[in-house]
């Protein structure tokens, strides 16, 4: 029995955290092994309670958030739910890396600030590592994470990618050969399915993960800078350090001064020359010529560098990372707010919650009468859930098309998609159309129309079936629901039997390899 969460307003329920999203995926994974009738009963109860509590049924976000609160309560023997365990492990790892980063930043800074009275601290090396390199990393991060996706996609067509292409293709071929030799077919399919599931998760939550990862990287970078900064301040506060610059190249002090002025621009309004950065005289006076040593150099020149280096560290190391971190948090929240939970597995839950029971047919046609789990088997007396679409374009394989009267098919499909008969456009999926998917007019199909394909469950999906589905996905947009209905073998009386669970499993496995979270497989039985 599902626990009832405290009454919450729909507005509050609209809010999802990363932990909620993880908990949601864990709950879905758990449900995959549960019998459909149990899930249906549980979710229907939750749906009724949600309605009583005034949870807005038109929003999947609020409804599913309510559902999650009901189902995510851990069982008695389970102390910490898996999603919290994962998050805790993630945060612990981030904390550990942060501590390491602080120590690393401090250690590196200490090494660079080492001074034993013989040779002053090399400003060039410190500047190169802590300022120039950080500027480089900051720009790279900006390029990788903050540029629009289309630019990132353009990388695929860059010269570098083209050069690597043969290598990548060769590796892929080698892996394919290896898997064909060493893995059984079932294992190969499972690996592909796993890869598909990962792709599917990324297409749903990729943006969220991206900003979470980006934020964590910024925390680590901040820690590094804090470590370095702390050491810098301690060193200059509690010990006498001389800073100097040197070069083998023929570089004048004027050039260095110009460069320093440019670098110090962000803080010159507050700390001007001589305070925030060394003056030309200081620069000339802190040049180290090895054969002359530092005895002849003035102490005031030699100490003039540290404010510049410290401020450089703050402005080019710490500050951008802080800004990036704020940006990451904002983006993460935005990504969370953008989740509409209208993908196939979420939609299934909503269907179970909102509508009359769907009877579970335990007498499967399968050899062993195996009970179908985690996905529905429907009977003719079911009342189907409301579909988010108002019309559907249905393509029916030739065999099924020829097996039944069109009106009968329409009624049957209408009851499953819960779209009125008159809103269904039935068409035959001929071999010609499979051979040339361009014959299917996808672009001119209205936005609210669902694509539905009816196949024979006993025929395992082929490469050309997958190509067809990929094409429909590509042309119809990434979030349009594609429904696949699988008919069981026709019985002697002409009625479609329930597809066997092994056939459904094979289809689910293959479709999961597409990595398409908006593609839903259901049985079509009478």
């Amino acid at each position, binding site marked *: 029995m599902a626990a009832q969460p405290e009454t919450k307003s729909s507005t509050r329920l609209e809010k999802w955290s990363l932990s909620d999203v993880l908990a949601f995926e864990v709950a879905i994974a758990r449900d995959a092994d549960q019998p459909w009738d149990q899930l249906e009963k549980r979710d229907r109860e939750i749906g009724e309670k949600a309605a009583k509590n005034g949870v807005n049924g038109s929003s999947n976000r609020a409804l599913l958030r309510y559902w999650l609160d009901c189902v995510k309560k851990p069982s008695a023997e389970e102390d910490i739910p898996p999603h919290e365990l994962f998050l805790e492990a993630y945060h612990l790892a981030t904390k550990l890396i942060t501590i390491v980063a602080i120590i690393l930043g401090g250690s590196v800074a200490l090494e660079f600030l080492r001074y034993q009275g013989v040779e002053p601290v090399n400003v060039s090396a410190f500047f190169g590592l802590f300022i120039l390199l950080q500027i480089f990393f900051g720009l790279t991060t900006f390029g990788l994470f903050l540029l629009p996706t289309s630019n990132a996609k353009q990388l695929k067509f860059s010269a570098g990618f083209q050069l690597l292409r043969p290598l990548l293709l060769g590796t892929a071929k080698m892996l394919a050969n290896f898997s064909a030799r060493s893995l059984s*077919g079932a294992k190969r399919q499972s690996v592909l399915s796993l890869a598909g599931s990962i792709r599917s998760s990324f297409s749903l939550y990729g943006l969220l993960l991206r900003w979470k990862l980006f934020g964590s990287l910024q925390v680590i970078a901040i820690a590094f800078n804090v470590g370095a900064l702390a050491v810098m301040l301690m060193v200059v506060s509690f010990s006498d350090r001389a800073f100097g610059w040197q070069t083998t190249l023929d570089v004048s002090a004027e050039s260095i001064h110009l460069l320093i002025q440019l670098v110090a621009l962000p803080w010159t309004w507050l700390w001007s020359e001589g305070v925030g950065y060394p003056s030309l005289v200081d620069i000339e006076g802190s040049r180290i010529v090895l054969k002359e040593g530092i005895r002849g150099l003035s102490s005031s020149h030699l100490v003039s560098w540290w404010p510049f280096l410290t401020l450089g560290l703050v402005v080019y190391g710490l500050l951008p990372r802080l800004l990036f971190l704020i940006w990451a948090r904002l983006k993460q929240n935005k990504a969370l707010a953008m989740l509409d939970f209208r993908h196939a597995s979420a939609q299934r839950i909503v269907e179970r919650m909102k509508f009359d029971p769907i009877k579970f047919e335990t007498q499967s046609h399968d050899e062993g009468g195996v009970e179908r789990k985690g996905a529905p088997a429907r009977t003719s007396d079911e009342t189907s859930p409301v579909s988010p679409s108002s019309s559907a374009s249905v393509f029916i394989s030739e*065999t099924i098309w020829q097996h039944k009267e069109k009106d009968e098919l329409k009624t049957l499909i209408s009851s499953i998609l819960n779209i009125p008969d008159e809103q269904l456009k039935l068409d035959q999926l001929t*071999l*010609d159309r499979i051979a040339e998917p361009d014959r299917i007019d996808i672009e001119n199909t209205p936005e609210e129309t669902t694509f539905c394909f009816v196949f024979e469950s006993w*025929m395992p999906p082929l490469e050309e079936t997958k190509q067809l589905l990929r094409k429909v996905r590509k042309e119809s947009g990434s979030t349009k629901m594609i429904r696949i209905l699988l008919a069981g*073998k026709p019985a002697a009386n002409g009625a479609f039997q329930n597809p066997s669970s092994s056939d459904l499993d094979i289809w689910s496995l293959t479709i999961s390899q597409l990595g398409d979270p908006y593609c839903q497989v259901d049985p079509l039985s009478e």
Partner: protein
Amino acid sequence: MADIPTFAIIGHPNEGKSSVVATLAEDESVRISPVPGETTRLARFDLKAGNASIIEFVDTPGFQNPAKTLAWFKQNANAEDNIAQAFIQQHSSLSDYRHDCELMKPVASGAGILYVVDGSRPITSSDQAEMEILRLTGKPRMAIINCKSDETLYLDAWKAAFRKSFNAIRVFDACGATFSERIGLLDALKSVDQDWNPSLQKAIDLLQKDWARRGKRAVETIIDSLEQGLRFSKSKLVARESDLELAKPELERAYREGLEKIERRAWNEIQRQYRHQALKISIPDSSILNENLFSDRTWQAFGLTGKQLALAAGAAGAGIGVGLDVAAGGIAFGVFTAAGAAFGAGAALLKGKDLAKLKIKQIPVGGFKLQLGPNQNPQFPFILLDRVILYAKICSNWAHARQNRDLSISDENLKEGSSSRWDAKQRALCSKVFQAIRKERNDQLETLYPEFKEVLSSELERNPDH
């Protein structure tokens, strides 16, 4: 390699192509899976007679693009001499067509086509596309209907569809096919293309000779195991008389293990002769062969009835006296279980398993020698014989594609062994052979063995009951 007939096994994914190949080529290394996509590239398997390859079977991946492939074949039907080769050339660089190109390779090389379908499912437009593709290749072809379940509703539709574009049709259960059914299939291949007639007939002749040779070897193995089992005894030296009782259980165990070893060795040898080398024969848990040689169930299921046994012994000239002699002459003790105790005295002599002789002999230099066996129970050799015959029958008819099938013998049908169904003359012959083995009368055995071998050979030729 000599020029031998080559057949490509082609079809939709997950129709049982690999199972057909495994059974026809007698090769259990063929990878079979209930999940489609197990076979991703060509695999060649030779059917051998002795060491000579006589037919080559090529296992292929399933069609992945029948609609697109058919469209291409239709466009190029008249333009190409070897359309399969042209298809490969044009599509080999496309990863989506990898499987379709693979399956076309043997066709392009001139192999005959064996198109496999699962007849327990309805025919679809993809199947029709595949049939049409194969017709357009212009190669000789035969359709094999391999029903993966007992459903027969769609069988007629399949046959009707095949009649339009195939030279021959054959229903073939890849997982249950016997040798004669395999020969039947090969024989049917002759009708696909007359050019193959001589080489296929030669292959069939070789195969039948090879099969007869395997049967002969199996019979020899059976006789060998009988000789070893009936003459087997185990002895142990004991220093003091007080240790005699302690030594008996150990001797019993060693005796039983010895007999089981002899039996297992014979089984393994028979398995090897029928090319089931990877121990793929899995006797189900419920099978009688999993029972211990001396279990009650074994002794109920195998051997002769009391009446049959008395008659056989009488006809062999020993009569019931064999049992009486055994009981009175040796020091009998419960070697195994006391199952016989439930029967009357006469029945116990005939049916009981507690009649192995234990001889205790005092050794002049000191100590005692205990000897258990040979087993003198008249039922025992029939039990041994029935078990090894049943195993040989399973091996000879075990399709190489078979994963697991129930071989159990119902408990209600006692005496399921072969010997109880033989006629009185054959049973009497057996009794004589057993007696001669026990008494090591080799001259008598030489006379008896030819006829005994005939009996065993014809028994092995009979279809298995289980």
